[in-house]
């Protein structure tokens, strides 16, 4: 049994990586700065006033691990291809699913293993009043929306940064469990960049009019 499972996982990961690569190549308008890049270091920051500090980490927000819950439609998504969550799962009145298909029906506060439901504390979607949908938004729009207390559950900047850097559910993106692609930018680097952005005044990029075409295929 063991050898079979191991190779199956290997294969699944291989396929997932391929799909991810394909997804990236579709997203033509994602700027080079957003691409996960090994050369970018947390401390070699670009100038502060033009929102480049935000675009330095926006690739994380656009990653399927984040985007699958921040995408269009009143439902979560799955996989690196961002397909709608199986079983007709919906956002629900509080972002916790509906009736007999709530997030906690299957998801625990921890990952369970390959092909099993992933999990983290407070596994949920943003609530419908503040759905925090990033799909289809420009970097500038994403930036403004996460800073907007009307859209971000009334978080001030400190609380927003805390959510981005310390929330267990967000942190899950770096430890998504076997068979799922983790966010490539190291968490430390991401946290440092977010804090750098905050320290420099949390400036958003200016609107370029350029719009990410399809961050998540299938919509």
């Amino acid at each position, binding site marked *: 049994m063991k050898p079979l499972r191991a190779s199956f996982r290997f294969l699944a990961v291989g396929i997932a990586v391929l799909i991810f690569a394909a997804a990236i190549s579709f997203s033509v308008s994602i700027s080079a700065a957003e691409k996960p890049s090994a050369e970018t270091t947390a401390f070699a920051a670009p100038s502060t006033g033009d929102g480049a500090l935000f675009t330095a980490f926006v690739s994380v927000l656009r990653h399927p691990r984040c985007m699958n819950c921040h995408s269009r439609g009143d439902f979560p998504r799955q996989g690196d291809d961002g397909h709608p969550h199986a*079983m007709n799962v919906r956002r629900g009145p509080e972002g916790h699913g509906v*009736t*007999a298909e709530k997030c906690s029906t299957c998801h*625990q506060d921890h990952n369970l293993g390959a*092909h*099993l*439901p992933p999990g983290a504390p407070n596994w949920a979607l943003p609530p419908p009043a503040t759905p925090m949908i990033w799909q289809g938004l420009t970097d500038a729009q994403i930036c403004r929306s996460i800073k907007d207390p009307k859209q971000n559950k009334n978080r001030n900047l400190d609380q927003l940064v805390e959510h981005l850097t310390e929330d267990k559910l967000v942190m899950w993106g770096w430890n998504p469990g076997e068979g799922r692609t983790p966010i490539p930018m190291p968490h430390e680097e991401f946290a440092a960049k977010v804090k750098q952005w905050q320290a420099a005044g949390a400036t958003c990029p200016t609107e370029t009019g350029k719009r990410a075409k399809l961050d998540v295929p299938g919509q």
Partner: protein
Amino acid sequence: MLSFIVNKQRVNLDVDPSTPLLWVLRENLGLTGTKYGCGMAQCGACTVHLNGEAVRSCVAPVSRAAGKEVTTIEGLSPDLSHPLQRAWIAEDVPQCGYCQSGQLMSAAVLLREKPQPTDEDIDEAMTGNICRCGTYPRIRKAIHRAAGMMTKGEAR
């Protein structure tokens, strides 16, 4: 020692806390009405209520139940009087019957939260429960029937 309530009875158990609730219910407590179908929260046969919410017991470690209240199919009603059970009989829903415990436990949460469910509500509540025999059309009818019984005040 792990302690929780099952079908209104307190149980104290000495089990590995990572054991799925399903197997504790079935093997330690003899409550075999809750079924094993897939072991990965894909089919819903193992659905029970944990503090009133539908939970796939095949992936929920028993530790998650500690201090909480579990209801299984055996505790849905003592005498087949739950409106859903009566509707299931009226519509002759089960075929092999294996998935029906899970179907009923999911439907019970649906009806509690949406006493007059639409077809869309049914799709959103019941799509996590697989039936290989294909009783879906009857499950849908029976849920509507149970909702009707509840409106008419026939519910317990």
